[in-house]
């Protein structure tokens, strides 16, 4: 199993995708800090507390990027027909999906760590330039970092699950977007029960990055999102195992 997980990391390292996504996220992170720091209308003046707010800004998009990596990592095998070679080496297809379920959450976490480090560095620099010394021992900062890493990891897991089920890369990407942007909203209004909304996948993800309010607790959100991911992956694996690779 370890060699399959290592092979997944080799696959990730040897195409440009992961570098492009990381670069894009880092650039986005710098932009969020600049935007947050310069546009202070209605916001409290810059203070040591601003630091955790700045660092928290890219977390939602980070979760999306981790989801994207997971989807492309699984569906890309079908798109480029590399799945033929992958299954020739490892005929036990369930093990291949399992290796991806381990590798992509880790990749999501690595992406989040890199992006958060860039965000923190730029934010700290900006605040320092304004004579403010941010505290790295801030409890709120710890919660932000934990939430961002958890969300990115679990979204990587969801991405692999979705793509194992859908297989077609475009369908998996479009389907995920439509689900998040349209279907969940429709479900909420159709069910006439806003209290059920917190059980939807994106609400579970939101509970991890910003728990409380109408959301579940962070632990509840994490467990729910992990459950969604594993259910998708399990159903997807069953399909992948049976499907003819032609």
């Amino acid at each position, binding site marked *: 199993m370890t*060699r399959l997980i290592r092979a997944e990391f080799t696959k990730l390292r*040897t195409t440009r995708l992961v570098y492009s996504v990381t670069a894009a996220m880092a650039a986005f992170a710098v932009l969020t800090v600049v935007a947050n720091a310069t546009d202070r209308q209605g916001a409290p003046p810059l203070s040591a507390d601003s630091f955790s707010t700045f660092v928290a800004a890219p977390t939602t998009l980070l979760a999306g990027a981790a989801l994207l990596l997971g989807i492309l990592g699984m569906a890309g095998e079908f798109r*480029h027909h590399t799945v033929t070679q992958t*299954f*020739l080496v490892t005929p036990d297809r369930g093990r291949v999906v399992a290796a991806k379920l381990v590798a992509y959450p880790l990749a999501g976490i690595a992406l989040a760590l890199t992006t958060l480090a860039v965000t923190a560095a730029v934010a700290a620099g900006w605040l320092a330039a304004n004579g403010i010394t941010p505290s790295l021992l801030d409890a709120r900062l710890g919660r932000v970092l934990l939430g961002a890493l958890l969300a990115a990891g679990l979204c990587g897991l969801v991405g692999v699950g979705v793509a194992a089920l859908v297989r077609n890369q475009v369908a998996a990407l479009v389907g995920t977007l439509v689900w998040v942007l349209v279907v969940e909203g429709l479900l909420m209004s159709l069910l006439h029960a806003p209290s059920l909304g917190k059980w939807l996948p994106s609400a579970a993800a939101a509970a991890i990055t910003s728990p409380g309010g109408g959301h579940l607790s962070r632990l509840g959100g994490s467990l729910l999102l992990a459950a969604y991911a594993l259910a998708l992956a399990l159903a997807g694996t069953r399909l992948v195992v049976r499907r003819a*690779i*032609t």
Partner: protein
Amino acid sequence: MAAITIEGLTKRFGDVLAVDDLSFEVDQGTVVGFLGPNGAGKTTTLRMLLGLVTPTSGTARIDGQPYRALADPVRHVGAVLEASSFHPGRSARSHLRVVATAAGLPLARADAVLAQVGLAEAARRRVGGFSLGMRQRLGLATALLGDPQMLILDEPANGLDPEGVHWLRGLLRDLADQGCTVLVSSHVLAEVAQTVDQVVIIAGGRLVAQSTLAALTARTEQLVRVRTPQAEALQPLLAAQGVQVDPDGGDQLVAVGTTTEAVGQAAAAAGIVIYEMRAERSNLEDVFLQLTSQQGVRA
């Protein structure tokens, strides 16, 4: 025990019966050509043998085991199925390193097989920029990675230039000399005729013939090609002697299984003028076409 055993193998895709109760064996250390026209079911058979497609019924075994049950498949069997199964953004070397990592092989094998197939220079180039011939070579490199004792190749000569085909023949012959079992598919007999010991011919998903190449060559026939203004008169004359005669356009006839002497005698006796006459042998390709066209068209 046979290296490859196909027994009653059948695959139905919806209404299409792609492979129909196919059975054959490949002995250890032989090079077998797996032949048939396009759409005969060669690729589906090979994919079933490699555990990529589940048969509707029947079994395909390698050394007595289904591919999916092999402990270390890459060290056991090398396969080349299609020339396009590479990530276009990954270099040839990285592609091989991914496979080596997953198979638990030393990464140095990647450079060794690249050199073996003549791609050492292109090792760090992205596969997206590779020609079809280079992809075929990379496919072969991937198959050789685990230094297997068996190779299963689906149309490996597709996209290779004449120099590449020559190189491929040499490679297969070397591997055969080392005792490697090779099953190589093709829709052109001539492509593999110089390399293989035996042929398995299928058409319409069914076995048409399995024989040694020598036995197939023995099925080629002596032909006499005749040009005469009295073709209509000569044809029944030869047919009466039990010779199969086919018109070959205009004033030409092809008499199968006879000699120029016999045709000349018959023509002289009947006072038929002959402009031109020559003896030839039908070639392997004719035998192949004859075999596959008889069985290939089924209701």
